[in-house]
């Protein structure tokens, strides 16, 4: 990390007043706790020079990207730009051939498995809504709840009052309060998307990766989702991959354009839309 980056991060962190201050405790405590995300340097996610290739095809090619605590970052890019592969790398599903991926300043994500990364505080929503279809909405959320996730604690698990409060709160947030005992498989597509977002929130993640969260939603549902994301911003860091430009316009601060596995442009939506190279990859060729 360069000094400028650190300086910029500190500014963002103090502006959002979110995770940076809470976990770091300012300059007073310098002790690094293992397993705790250290965001004192103003970055919650840091990818540097990451490359991965499948059978010679470079899906990610020297990608460098970083996200500040509390930031809502939108990622756009043409098909095959490497958006989903990037999320696979961050969540431990795919191992890169080279590069570094850090969560905070101290946690090397490349050393962890998918469940460990989830427990560390990175939640992920898939492109295709993935919920447990045979279980009820309530049971889906209960499984996602942040708690001990070993076999023995699951066998003897009982919800306490505080956890029930949290469940009720999330059920209201995702507008499924009346459907708690419905089978998740019977929900509409948009409702499944919401349920999956609710499951992420139950995990209480520090960073949310959302792959096309409003795909297949009605306009009203999309508007509600935008509203929800704006309330999450600041408390959580979000990385949103979307194709819906009006949705991005509603929620975005900074937009990153990916193309051919690396960053093509970055800035506000207007800036990147005015960028010659971006216009070329979207319209040209």
């Amino acid at each position, binding site marked *: 990390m360069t000094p400028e980056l650190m300086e910029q991060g500190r500014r963002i962190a103090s502006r959002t007043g979110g995770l940076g201050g809470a976990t770091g405790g300012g300059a007073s405590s310098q002790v690094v706790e293992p397993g705790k995300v250290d965001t004192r340097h103003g970055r919650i996610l840091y990818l540097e020079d990451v490359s991965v290739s499948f059978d010679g095809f470079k899906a990610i090619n020297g990608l460098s990207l970083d996200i500040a605590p509390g930031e809502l970052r939108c990622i756009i890019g043409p098909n095959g730009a490497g958006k989903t592969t990037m999320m696979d790398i961050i969540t431990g599903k795919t191992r890169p051939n080279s590069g570094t991926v850090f969560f905070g300043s101290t946690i090397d994500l490349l050393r962890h498995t998918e469940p460990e990364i989830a427990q560390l505080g990175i939640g992920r929503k898939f492109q295709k809504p*993935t*919920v447990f279809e045979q*279980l009820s909405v*309530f049971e889906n959320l209960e*499984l996602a709840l942040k708690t001990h996730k070993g*076999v023995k604690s699951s066998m003897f698990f009982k919800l306490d009052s505080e956890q029930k409060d949290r469940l*009720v709160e999330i059920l209201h947030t995702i507008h499924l309060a009346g459907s*708690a005992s419905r089978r998740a498989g*019977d929900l509409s597509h948009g409702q499944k998307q919401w349920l999956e977002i609710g499951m992420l929130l139950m995990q209480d993640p520090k960073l949310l990766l959302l792959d096309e969260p409003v795909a297949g939603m009605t306009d009203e549902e999309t508007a509600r989702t935008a509203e929800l994301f704006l309330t999450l911003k600041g408390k959580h860091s979000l990385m949103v991959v979307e194709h819906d430009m009006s949705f991005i316009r509603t929620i975005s601060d900074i937009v990153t354009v990916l193309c051919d596995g690396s960053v093509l442009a970055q800035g506000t939506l207007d800036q990147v839309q005015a960028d010659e190279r971006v216009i070329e990859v979207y319209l040209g060729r």
Partner: protein
Amino acid sequence: MSNHSILPQRAPLLSTPAWSAFFAALLVVCALVPVLHLVMPPDSPLHMSEYMVALVGKIMCYAIVALAMDLIWGYTGILSLGHGLYFALGGYVMGMYLMRQIGRDGNYKSDLPDFMVFLDWKELPWHWSLSSSFTATLFLVVLVPGIVAFVFGYFAFRSRIKGVYFSIITQAMTFAAMLLFFRNETGFGGNNGFTDFKRILDMPLATRNMRMTLFVITGCTLLLFFLLSRWMVASKFGRVLQAIRDAETRVMFSGYKPLPYKLSIWVISAVMCGIAGALYVPQVGIINPSEMSTAASIEMAVWAAVGGRATLVGPIIGAFVVNGAKSWLTVTAPEYWLYFLGALFIVVTLFLPDGIVGLWKRLRGRGGRGPKAAAQQSAALEEGQAPTGAVAPATGGAQ
């Protein structure tokens, strides 16, 4: 926020009618059958014959296996085609003890089991050293299948072997074990296995009282395992298993490591089979490597499928229906049994994905609230949703 009323109530372990049925079954096993067999005079029409007691006792052992299959296949979506191995391991451990109980009453009047004398062995091989103790046998009945399942499961699940590949490997495992047990050098009686048992705990086996005792123990074990399984699938542990079956990646990204979950239920399932095998051998009076044949293991999967996967009670019903039909058909028309089994499997796969229990539920649902249910279904279709009743709860294990 403290309004918890929108959260559904946790269902009890068993509903009131289910508890009634459970205690009725317990009464039948522990009181009714002993009275019908031991007290009723043989010429009475209510008398339960020795043949029937032996048959039902045997089928109850199979029902325990079917229950074990349901936990691993119905609930976790892992189709094992090798559970015959664990059944046979439990059976062999018990068989070794029963062979030692013969003492010097064998054909060769030797301390060694007959087949060892026949092979001209002078002393017991090392793996027979604990076989004279009943207590050790009880432990080994649990430990041997448990450890074999743990080692196999650990490497298979760690390598993320899934679906049909996993099924094939389990099948290969049991076949390899069968070939091993067929050999005389391994010290398990070769292709004849163990038979001619005389007594257990120094008491003669071939008495009506002993047969009844084993029957009651088997019945109680089955009921106990049913309750245990019910408790497991009703806990969050059971819901994680179903979640692994339906969307394993989502389970991982929710922070659960699938390996310990799969391994736990795999080992529990194998141990249940081992105990079933140990109860089976003294009642049937023989154990040989044919229990490890591939067909035997496939039949176990058929019991669970016929009864209805992911229902617990279904596989028990399935074990009774299929084996009842088997013992009836192999007497009246032995040449048709295999055709019947094949046809049954095809019919269940094509038309009854939820087995007998699913059929019953569907019939009851149609009878009870016919037009209303139909209206709901068409309304759901208009909304572009799949009708709920027709969707199988356990989408094929071997995907």
